[in-house]
């Protein structure tokens, strides 16, 4: 019982440290989600799969919010004629790259780790999109 109390106290201490960061990030996410209109996204894609996948990854990286939003937005992009590669890169980057969360990630898990993880996640979002769409068309 004493150990359980100790672990609960330790957990609350950890949360106290992180709470301002979480609140700050949610405030930022709210601001970005409400200030970027949906129509903005569909105006910047060209018809080049590689270029579009990079653009998709860039937008996915800076846009943040619940994953379900990215799926719905991705589905809408597809309806508006954006390529599947770009949409896939966008959705994958949305859920794997965290520009907005970067300050918290670098403070808590280390700057080197946060930089490396986000850069590799960005590169992999393009690669995952290309491989996925290739497999979808060949299988």
């Amino acid at each position, binding site marked *: 019982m004493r150990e359980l109390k100790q672990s609960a106290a330790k957990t609350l201490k950890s949360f106290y440290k992180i709470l301002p960061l979480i609140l700050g990030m949610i405030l930022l996410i*709210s*601001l970005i989600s409400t200030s970027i209109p949906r129509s903005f996204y569909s105006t910047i894609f060209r018809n080049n799969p590689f270029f579009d996948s990079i653009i998709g990854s860039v937008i996915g990286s800076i846009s943040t919010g619940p994953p379900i939003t990215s799926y719905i937005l991705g589905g809408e992009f597809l309806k508006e004629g954006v390529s599947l590669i770009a949409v896939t890169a966008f959705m994958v980057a949305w859920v794997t790259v965290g520009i907005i969360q970067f300050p918290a990630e670098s403070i808590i898990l280390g700057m*080197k780790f946060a930089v490396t993880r986000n850069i590799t*996640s960005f590169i*992999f979002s393009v690669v995952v999109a290309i491989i996925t769409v290739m497999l979808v068309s060949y299988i």
Partner: protein
Amino acid sequence: MKNKYRSRQINVSWYFLIAVILVYIILAFINFSLFSSSLKFFFNLIIKIVPIFILILILMVITNYFITPKLITRYFKAPGIKKWLFVVIAGILSTGPIYMWYPLLAELKEKGINYGFIATFLYSRAIKIWLLPVIIFYFSLKYVIILTIVMIVFSTIQGITINKILTSDR
């Protein structure tokens, strides 16, 4: 030294929150409608994530109670594929926004888990089983299955890559 680092970490967290609040205050003067809709979005999001917050707190208490450095060391000495599989499954099953997991991951790091596993965990969190019906609705079952498999593979590739980069950096 450790205490000094911790208090610096707390200060940075508060400075960050104060900076964002200042942005909101300025926004209230220059664009009140964006300010109020952002604030509304913020409160809706807070209401949605409070249950996840509680769940994560409980999980952290359990982790603190059961997961000791000794146990981690023993478990992570298991054959290679098993531990990667464990991390991928844990990532897929985890809930809530990514940043809510950082304190738990930082603690696991202190208990001996390497950066590669943390990266794999964070990457595989992108696979949301309960959201699959939404993607199937917009795309196709074939697309979802392929994307999920490719992402599972890449979550491991990212873990291995990060391990190599950060280990060679030391």
